[in-house]
């Protein structure tokens, strides 16, 4: 997926690579954020009435 984005991007190689890294980091942050949210189903910390 990332390689197809890379090949479709215009501009010099360095700029395309920078965009690609930014997209990868964004995806990683989204995935971790979703893990945190989903994690509350497994273990929310055990608070009462919070």
């Amino acid at each position, binding site marked *: 997926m990332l390689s197809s984005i890379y090949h479709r991007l215009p501009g010099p190689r360095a700029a395309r690579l920078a965009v690609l890294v930014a997209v990868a980091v964004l995806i990683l942050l989204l*995935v*971790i954020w979703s*893990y*945190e949210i*989903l*994690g*509350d*189903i*497994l*273990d*929310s*910390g*055990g*608070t*009462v*009435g*919070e």
Partner: protein
Amino acid sequence: MRPRTIRIIRGTGWTFIWLGAYLMGFVAYQLWFTNLLTARDQSALAAGLDAHFEDVVVEEVEWFPVVVAGGTTTTTVPGAEPIPDPVPKILFVESESEVGEAFAQIRIPAIDLDVTMVEGVRRRDLKKGPGHLSGSPLPGQPGNAVISGHRTTYGAPFGDLGELTAGTRIEVETALGVHIYEVREAPERCRTEEGLCVVKPTDLWVAEPREGAWLTLTTCHPKFSARRRLIVFAELVAGPNAEVILGT
């Protein structure tokens, strides 16, 4: 096979591969990576705890337990006509910590637990370790000190809370000193066949004020589910304020 059909099959296959990778990542993140995060935070909290103890302001305050007719010392009997005890007792009181900061160490030798606790029970607080419900008394003070902690993730400090039985010793070290609690049997209203106290997350009565000095530990139940709460009640039996509170 037509190219369109091949594309659909290939797309479906990749979708399942990505979904599988996502779920494997989720399991690894929850059961392994969160433990690393908490271990790092615990190291930092433990290192700063002694300095915190030195910063805490400890005061001696006059405490007026309420004596109800019949001689029972209490503050919470509904409907009773309380008569203030004319003789104040001296209670050691410590200043509260900032939310998110370390404030005490909890040790339960029976389950090999020895972790630093933080003030507050926000999500970010409980990632560091067990958290004290702000607004409830601090451990070692009269009333009901409520502590919550993770059971399966973020170091799982309360992972073995279900193994505690009546009489198990719990030590909480604060700036005042070490407060010793003993686990009491689960109340009938929440007792399961296994003798555990299991309630809904909305059952606020477990955090209500109580006479004497109590430590209430709460965590998720059953393991790998946040559907219910496992509650352990422990009563103060020794410590800097025990004689004053218990009237012994």
